């Protein structure tokens, strides 16, 4: 059970850390000053979540590792984040589509996790829930503005939705690790969130005059450490400091 809990918390931590790294790449490059700060805010929310989750994972593991070692000194195949969060930023529409898919899942996920029998996870969820609520609003409003905007913004937003859609199946995967923890009242059953997630997306995409893709074939592998080609480059940038100066802190 300890192994399963460690894996579960690590997955959540990796999701938050990798997404924050991707969002951080926008810093100084976003289309407007306002959005530059807005995306950095979202990135920092995920940094906060990642820190709490890595610290807890390290505690559960009990092998003397800390949050920095888990985040910055593991190799590519040891990361357990879903493929969606590691997808490159692309144009602004792709970043917004990634945010929409992920936050529409994470909001109800954190809401449910506040009822976890694991007190630490429940406390982390209570804080993350409010952050996720804003992330979803932010992504939804942009999706609507871009979808129901100009011909070009609509084309790009629809292309982004279609491009990232195959990475959403992984959010709902429930392997033995998840099933075991769901049975113990610790984890959230992701299958139970699918209907609500689809309803949120349908509402936003309809207002955005965009089309929800058909179910179709889904990508998988992130939870087992099989990542996208670009992932190694992301890690080399994210882990540079701890690898060049081991144990350095500030």
């Amino acid at each position, binding site marked *: 059970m300890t192994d399963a809990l460690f894996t579960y918390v690590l997955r959540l931590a990796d999701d938050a850390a990798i997404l924050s790294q991707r969002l951080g790449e926008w810093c100084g490059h976003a289309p*407007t000053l*306002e*959005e530059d700060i807005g995306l950095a*805010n979202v990135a920092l929310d995920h940094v906060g979540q990642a820190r709490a989750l890595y610290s807890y994972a390290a505690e559960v593991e009990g092998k003397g590792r800390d949050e920095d070692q888990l985040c910055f000194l593991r190799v590519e195949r040891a990361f357990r984040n879903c493929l969606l969060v590691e997808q490159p930023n692309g144009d602004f529409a792709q970043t917004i589509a990634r945010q929409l898919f992920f936050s529409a899942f994470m909001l109800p996920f954190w809401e449910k996790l506040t009822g976890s029998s694991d007190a630490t996870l429940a406390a982390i969820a209570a804080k993350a829930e409010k952050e996720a609520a804003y992330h979803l*609003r932010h992504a939804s*409003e942009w999706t609507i503005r871009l979808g129901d905007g100009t011909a070009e913004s609509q084309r790009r937003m629809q292309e982004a939705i279609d491009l990232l859609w195959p990475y959403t199946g992984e959010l709902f995967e429930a392997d033995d690790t998840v099933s075991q923890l769901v049975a113990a009242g610790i984890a959230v059953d992701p299958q139970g969130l699918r209907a609500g997630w689809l309803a949120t997306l349908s509402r936003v995409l309809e207002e955005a005059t965009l089309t929800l893709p058909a179910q179709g074939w889904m990508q998988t592998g992130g939870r087992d450490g099989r990542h996208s080609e670009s992932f190694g480059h992301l890690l080399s940038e994210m882990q540079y400091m701890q690898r060049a100066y081991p144990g350095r802190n500030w």
Partner: protein
Amino acid sequence: MTEKTTPLWEVFIRSRTGMAHRHCGSVHAADAEMALQAARDVYTRRGEGLSIWVVPSAEIIASDPSEKGMLFEPTASKIYRHPTFYEIPEDVGNM
């Protein structure tokens, strides 16, 4: 982004209950909802706010700087209008 697609909005933040909203800056945004969002992201990052107002900058009616002599100078010589001749009890709080 142009002024036409994302006009300027003035941002007012109320930091505490009982205080007035104070002007703190401006943002560019496509509409009111996006302006509120941008104002939240830009101006309340360190816990500054409990409430936000945004107002289209074009809707602000401003006094003419060339009239400042007529408008403001006459008050400079009327010291008796300043509320400095009595003490305000501590309990009054924010005035």
